Structures are given as structure tokens and as C-alpha cells.
């Protein structure tokens, strides 16, 4: 619960590193309390944007995440200069975030189940996707494909990174290419859209999950404000947030941050057959000719020993049949 002060002191009485003002309800929130509530305002439910590493820590089993490809770093292949030179923008972002680019990925476990997790970071140049981000998402997908573990991507992005030009645009192809292959291999892919998920990220892997989850009130849109303002397109009558997309058919569930980890674990436990005993579970193998559906439904080698009695019975009766 938040600390409620008996009176409201002047604004500058709050040291910036100790207190945060909620943009939802204007309440001053004690940072330590805010961290405990996963950076969700306890008064109004406002979901603050969070860094990628914080997100990883909230989702993954403690200590199970092993970052991969942390040494990938952007290059200024176009020698791009706008109001600033691109290298200067990158450097500033790297210094302020401690990241080399706007995404991290690695294998880990959630509820004991191995997953490939990739998380974007909006604080790194607006979470924009250039070749490094696209490469990390692709590698996360390739790992999911090779190890047959679910793919989970948490998006937070303003879209493609303009400073790397069409190389950034091609990340839509790379990421959709691997997403299609993960899906064809019958490996679950859960997309989590957080505030904001826009532009080319929304128009590629973020929208394409087997299950699309979104955080409450997250801004999700393809055409950005400034872009569409310059064209003939009329504005949407409402700002398209997570709840809008739920009713328009592109988001399966709007999930408050406090339930996000549990929901992902629950969904995975539905999409993946149980495995034997305490062994690590893996995604369903492709249905093979001549193999019964029951064996796929209940896992490659049978059912686990926790409340799957029917499935065990089914497996047994099948065994009897083939012996009889």
C-alpha cells in the first residue's frame, strides 16, 4: 500500500529520486512503494513505463534469465545526421539506460517452464527498432524454434528506427519471418503489448501472437500522431489504447501488470502438453502420421502425475488396445 501523508507538502518538498508524480491521478508516490507495486499506481492503476531489465525481473523465475547477444551493438551505417548525429543519440541512450540497444533477450524459466524471452525498452530512443532490435527478436525466435520452447516478446516501441533507414524496415521482414516459422513449428508465441506499441513494431511481431496480451491503457497504434497529422487521414475519435483493441478484435486480453506473469504461465500450461514427472516441458511436437492425437494431447511420453488422471487412463487404455 502507498504511504499516504496526512497533509500535502509543496511539490519541491519531494526529492525527485524518492518520489514520482502519477500522471494518471497526480498523486505523489513513494518510489520504493511504487517499485513494490510493479510500478503501477496503487490509487488509479496507472501503469508506468518500465525498463527492460525491470520487466524481465517481474516476469521471469528469479535468477533464471541468462541474457544472450548482449554484445550486439548498432552501427551508423547511413552516417545519419538530423538535429543530432545518430552516434550521439545512441551514446546518450546507452549511458542513460545501460543498454546497447532497445531490446534484451535470453532464455529463462517462468513457473519452471523454459521460455525464450525478449523485452523491449522504451527508454532507449523510444524503443525504436533497428537492426539490433530486429536481430535480437529473430534470435529469440530462432532459439525458441531450436529448443522448442515458447517465445514471449514484450513490446514497448515508437516503431522503426528512422536513423537506420530501410535496414530498420527490413526488421519487419526478419521478425515476421521467424514468427511464421515458430508458428509453423507449433511453438506458442505470446505477444505482450505495453505502453506504447506503435508503428512498425505493432505492424509486425507485436500484433502476430498466438495470444496477444496488452497492459491496461497501453497506447497501441500503427499511424503516429505527427505522421497522420501531415496527411489526408482523419484522426481516430478516440486514442487507441489496449481496451480499444480488445473490442476491435486484435488483443485477446488486457492484463494488469500484477497478473501478467501468472497469466502467461497459465496460458503456456494450456498450450503445451504436460510432460513426464519433473522433466522440463517442451512444446508439442508436430503431429506425426500414424501417431494418435491422444499422445500429442497428453505429451510425447504420457501425462504428468498431477491431476491428469483421465489422460493417464486414456494412455493406458490405448496401450492395452495395442497389446490386445
Amino acid at each position: 500500500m502507498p504511504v499516504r501523508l496526512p497533509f500535502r507538502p509543496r511539490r519541491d518538498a519531494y526529492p525527485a529520486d524518492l518520489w514520482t508524480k502519477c500522471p494518471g491521478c497526480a498523486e505523489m508516490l513513494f518510489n520504493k512503494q511504487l517499485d513494490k507495486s510493479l510500478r503501477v499506481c496503487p490509487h488509479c492503476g496507472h501503469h508506468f513505463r518500465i525498463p527492460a531489465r525491470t520487466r524481465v525481473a517481474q516476469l521471469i523465475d528469479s535468477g533464471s534469465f541468462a541474457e544472450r547477444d548482449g554484445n550486439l551493438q548498432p552501427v551508423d551505417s547511413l552516417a545519419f545526421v538530423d538535429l543530432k548525429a545518430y552516434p550521439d543519440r545512441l551514446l546518450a541512450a546507452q549511458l542513460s539506460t545501460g543498454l546497447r540497444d532497445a531490446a534484451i533477450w535470453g532464455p529463462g524459466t517462468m513457473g519452471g517452464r523454459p521460455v525464450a524471452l525478449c523485452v523491449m525498452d522504451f527508454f532507449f530512443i523510444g524503443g525504436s527498432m533497428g537492426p539490433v532490435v530486429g536481430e535480437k527478436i529473430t534470435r529469440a525466435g530462432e532459439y525458441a524454434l531450436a529448443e522448442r520452447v515458447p517465445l514471449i516478446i514484450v513490446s514497448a516501441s515508437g516503431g522503426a528506427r528512422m536513423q537506420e533507414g530501410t535496414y530498420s524496415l527490413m526488421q519487419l521482414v526478419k521478425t515476421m519471418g521467424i514468427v511464421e516459422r515458430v508458428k509453423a513449428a507449433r511453438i506458442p508465441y505470446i505477444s505482450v503489448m505495453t505502453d506504447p506499441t506503435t508503428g512498425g513494431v505493432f505492424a509486425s511481431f507485436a500484433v502476430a501472437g498466438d495470444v496477444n496480451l496488452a497492459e491496461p491503457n497501453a497506447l497501441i497504434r500503427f499511424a503516429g500522431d505527427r505522421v497522420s497529422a501531415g496527411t489526408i487521414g482523419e484522426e481516430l475519435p478516440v486514442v487507441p489504447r489496449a481496451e480499444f483493441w480488445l473490442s476491435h478484435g486484435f488483443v485477446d486480453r488486457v492484463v494488469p501488470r500484477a497478473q501478467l506473469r501468472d497469466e502467461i504461465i497459465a496460458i503456456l500450461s494450456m498450450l503445451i502438453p504436460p510432460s513426464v514427472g519433473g522433466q522440463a516441458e517442451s512444446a508439442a511436437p508436430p503431429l506425426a502420421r500414424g501417431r494418435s492425437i491422444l499422445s500429442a494431447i497428453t505429451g510425447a511420453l504420457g501425462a504428468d502425475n498431477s491431476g491428469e488422471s483421465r489422460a493417464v487412463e486414456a494412455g493406458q487404455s490405448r496401450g492395452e488396445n495395442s497389446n490386445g
Partner: protein
Amino acid sequence: MVDRLLNRHGAADGQADDPVATVWAHVQQARNLKRPHTLELLKYMADEFIELHGDRYFGDDPAIVAGLAKIGGVRTVVIGFQKGQDTEENIRRNFGLPHPEGYRKAMRMMELAERFAMPVLTFVDVQGAFPGAAAEERGIADGIARSVGMLTRLRTPVVVVITGEGGSGGALGLAVGDTVVALENSIYSVISPEGCAAILWRSGEQSHQAAYAMKVTANEQKDLGIIDIVIAEPGEGAHTDPAEMARRIKEVVLEQFEIHGRLTPDELVDARYAKFRPMGPFGLAEQPETPPERPGCAGWIRGILFRRPSLPQFPGTRRAAPANREEV
């Protein structure tokens, strides 16, 4: 009332004095607003249920609910029509009448089921697809056709449970399965009795008569080979003991999943196709030519063409085999 209906089916022994009225009472029972719908039944049947939303094209149809469930420990995709529990919910759910988005959401879930090796359970209770402009122009016909088509080739077991009204193409969109189960008081028809009366009798007043003529009750449909299993309802009907109703459904569904799950996907799809392929009897005339267009031969043609199933077979006509139905 349930007993009377059972008697009526069990033997035409005159206990039901007015057969038309008896059928109409059955129709009213099937439409009883208190009957448990998909979400109510899942509350009792499922260990866990995660509803998923949206067709990925246009919207999320509240008249069809769908999601991932564990039922008796079995990972299952559940899709079902959902009427409201009260007026407010009924308005929100469009009185359970689906738009194309509902069938497209259903197809997305079927595809998930196939891909992740989960059997599909559908609950059917709908008077028909929403007949309004928005549904028509966004392709309700296409939604139903494709949903039916996908079900004829889905490589995972599909069990259909008709819980109330199984009305026309709108119901059929979710009603093609390896086993089609119906609750005792449910109905199944090619068109709503009101629609049938409006067209054939040119008067909605004759809906009772139409319901009788179409043989809409679950047990009649079982006799016709359309429905495989009829589940008896507890007490005065499913709504009087939804927990017991759900228990009975769950038992049947899990047994059917197990039976169909023993097949390979190829065998399963072939068996489903073979189940529906012979549905609908027809005669075979020995004369390959169609009837000549001349007067005076009406009696001759009538004699050749129309043999009621109860009458002895006319030598010139073989009746095709009745629809196959496996008692499971």
C-alpha cells in the same frame, strides 16, 4: 414435463394428447432463459478457463465466447454461443445472435486447437445468426461457410454439445463434430419454427405446427441420425440443477475425447467426413431419365418417386442407406 416429453419419445402411446402442443412445450423448454449457457457450464466443468478475444479482422463478438480450458485435466479449446443472464447482458451480447466476427474468432481458436493438439468442445445455443444489416454485409454467410468447412478438416477431435436451440446455419457453424451431443430438452432445426411458419404457412402463427413438422426435438433428431447422444437433464430441466447438468456433460465429453483421440489425425478427419457424407436420404429411380413433361402420367410418377419410409419398397425404387450413426 420432462417425464411427459420422455414418454412422448419413448412410445407413441397416447399419453401426450396433443403432439403439437407437446413439441411446443419442448421448444419453450429449450428456450428457457434460465438454462445454463457456455460460461455457466464451464464454471462447473472446467478446472480453469482463460477466455480469449477477437477475430483479428474486425472485432470481438460477445455472442460467441471462446478460450482455453482444462476439463478433467485435459487441455481443451472451448467455443460456445453465449446469451445474457439478464437484460443488460443480453443487450451487450446481442441476445446471443452472432455476427461474422464470432465465427472468425471461432476459426482462429480451431486453428490454435489443431496447432497445439487440443480437442475442441463447442456449445450450441442460438436461434440463428444475427439477421441484421451489419452481419449480412460483413459476410455472415462466408463466416458460417468457412467455419463449417474448417470443422470438416480440423485435425483434432471436435465434440459438439447442443444445449438449447440449434437453429439453422448459425448453429451449424459450430456444430460439425466427431460426436454431436444434445441435451434432452434441446432442439435442432434447419430454420427456426417461426421462420419456417412464415415461409411455408405464410404466417408466423403456425410456428407450433412447423416445429412439429420439422421434428425438432433432440430425441427425434437422434432417430434421424443427426444427433449421436442425448443426455438426460436433471430434475425439471438443466436450469434446475446446472451443476449436475455440467457433470453429466463433462463425463460424456471426456469419454468422447478419449475415443476420438485414439485415432491418428488422418483417421479422425476421414471418420468425421464419413460421418456427415451420407447424411440425408434419397431415392434411386431405375429410370435414369428425368420424368417426361407430359400430362396424364402423374400417378405413375407418384408411384415411382414417393415412398414413405414406412411403406413397403416399390420395386422401381431403392432407398439409399439411412445416415450412418455410430452409437458411442
